[in-house]
């Protein structure tokens, strides 16, 4: 799956974040969501969707090689991860997320829950060309 985000369609409702937390953590807890919505107010007065584009910065900087690409998605191996949070610091989108109540970070695995729920069509998942 390849995500496409259309910032201009986002209305900042945050439904995507709640659906993400419910899908991935079985929790009504948007603080755990693996994407960010940034409201830029009062100026320029818009929303930016920050979404993992699988750039690999997290994997490149992980000191214990706990993050690796599997089927087009970088995943954190909880057995190897030491919780140093280096990946959280280097993530250019700010979507490697330190999890409340957990010592390990988490990241988007392209489950598509956000795109499925988004009422504005601002996040769209398409079949990847090179999956």
């Amino acid at each position, binding site marked *: 799956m390849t995500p496409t985000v259309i910032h*201009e*369609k*986002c*209305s*900042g*409702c*945050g*439904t995507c974040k*709640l*659906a993400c*937390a*419910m*899908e991935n953590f*079985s*929790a*009504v*807890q*948007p*603080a755990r969501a693996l994407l960010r919505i*940034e*409201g830029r*107010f*009062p*100026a*320029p*007065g*818009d*929303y930016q969707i920050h979404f993992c584009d699988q750039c690999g910065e997290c994997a490149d900087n992980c000191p214990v090689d706990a993050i690796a690409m599997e089927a087009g998605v970088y995943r954190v191996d909880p057995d190897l991860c030491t919780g140093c949070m280096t990946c959280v610091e280097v993530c250019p989108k700010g979507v490697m997320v330190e999890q*409340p109540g957990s010592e390990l970070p988490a990241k988007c695995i392209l489950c598509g829950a956000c795109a*499925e*729920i988004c*009422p*504005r069509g601002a996040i769209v998942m398409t079949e990847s060309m090179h999956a």
Partner: protein
Amino acid sequence: MYGYAGTILRIDLSSGAIEKQPLDETLAERFIGGRGFVAKLLFDELPRGIDPYDERNLFIAATGPLSGHLVPASGKTHFGTKSPATGGYADSNMGGHFGPALKYAGYDMLIITGCSPVPSYLFIDDDQVEIRPAGNYWGQGALTAEKSLKTDLGEDFQILTIGPAGEQRVRYACLSHDFGRQAGRSGVGAVLGSKRIKAIAVKGTGSLPVFDLKKAFAAGKEAYKKVSAKPGFTEWTPEGTAGITNWVNEVGVFPTRNFKTSFSDHYQAINGKAILKKLKITDKGCYCCPTPCGKYGHTQTRLGNAYVEGPEYETIALFGGNCELKTIEEVAYANYLCDELGVDTISAGAVISWTIECFEKGMLSEREIGRPVRFSDLETVNYLLDKIVAREGIGDLLAEGVKKAAEKVGQGSHAFAIHVKGLEWTGYECRNAPSMMLAYMTADIGAHHSRAWVLGHDMAGAWTNVHDLVSGGGTVERQPPARIRADSARFVIDSQHTRPLFDALGICRLQLMELGFEVENYEALFYFITGKKRSWKEMLGVSERIWNLTRSISAREIKGFGRSWDFPPDRFSTEPIPSGPNEGYFIPKESLDQLLDWYYAERGWDANGLPTRQTLVRLGLEEVADQLTAEGVLTH
């Protein structure tokens, strides 16, 4: 308790005491949440007869069981207090993201009493709760203060602020949040200002307990699909509430020149389409809302430029119609001024239009006001808002609201001081809309439309679905006279139970009222989230209980409260509408009395409009009946 956060946060500003207490299950069962909690807490804990600015007054922020859950538009927060505008029961609600954040921090409700020794703000970061000095935030505009706090605390904090109007106790000061959402009505911002609280900053990272998460998630996802499939979804969302501007003019209910008439011939310059063409940058939605009413944009006028959310329909009505600003840019700028200063656009528009009419009639002089004031003049709006918020000169009088101002000015100016119970009237003129008139007369906080919106019962050419409301741009035709009908009472009462039920649940009513999202969906979501099987009909019974409780609070707090408090200003019962589709119509006093007779009888209230013991007992409010009897309010 599933659905709820489970804790009430109490803060006594005078002593600095911060207390967390478990949410009582019986309270949740009997009053659901939100507005229901507000009413019950005010009845139980408000010391009788105190001034609204007495430090013993309560300021309550309450969420509902569905707030923060995967339910369409679950971002509502309800605020309650004793109203500085009316002296009676007050509540005002707001969308945005504040309430869900409060719940994720662990609190269903925040109850503030006392008064801070110095200007302060409340800091809530999950378990960490502090009263912090407001420092330089005090004195800042409401929007500016929100930006300052976001910059200082971080984007993850949801911020509620008051503007200078709240600090100065303007009786229609509002609460502001999310750069454009307001709890505008009843003066809730003035009460927070009287407690010297500039802002409340909340960050919540916790989770909410759910009875059956799997089914709640599935039903939630299905709900979004169903809402998106409603025909109204694509029709309502583009323009939001501003989309009805055409219709209200074409059926002649648009307040114009201080409710002198009910049609503005420039309406197509200030409608929803004008917003899209001239202002809009982005849709701006409340938490989990699939149908964002908010249109955020930028306006340019000769007085200045501003980023602003809106204007919503009500602001268009009160500034575009009632103050007769002729362009959407000017209406939006007036909107921005109110937002930054922290005043309700509805009451502010009504106060300014009343002042202009007083000036035109020679009841207020240029010397008293400080300059000539005119309709269709943005400088007038700007000047008077500045005076009001500074409480300078004429502004000190106008900051009291139209009712109190008219009492001072005299000379018959009360006849066109457009309010009920001291709360200024919102955006629908009703001299040919008796059901809607009755809704305004009997709304528990004063002249407000959101308790019952029943124009469909009155108007020929009335809307049957959202398409009729927003299609607009059609013809302006003379309306036939509406009939005074006994069934108006039942119609109004049903609406007064349905719409405010959403205020108890902590969600927005729009999906049901405007889009026709069926009640069965809410019943299912309520069950999966809370584990309680409650039918819509049974919950409407709770809504009736709440309605009788809010009426009881006003009866207890306002000396002589009753039928005489339920009348509109004389303009509506004596002056025929001079122009537009409803030219010549008015509703004589005897017809208004008749409407009240039917309404009181249907509610089981006495001829003076007070709930009877029998009615209170039927609704499970025996303790209310006992207290009102003991205090001499109830005599039968």
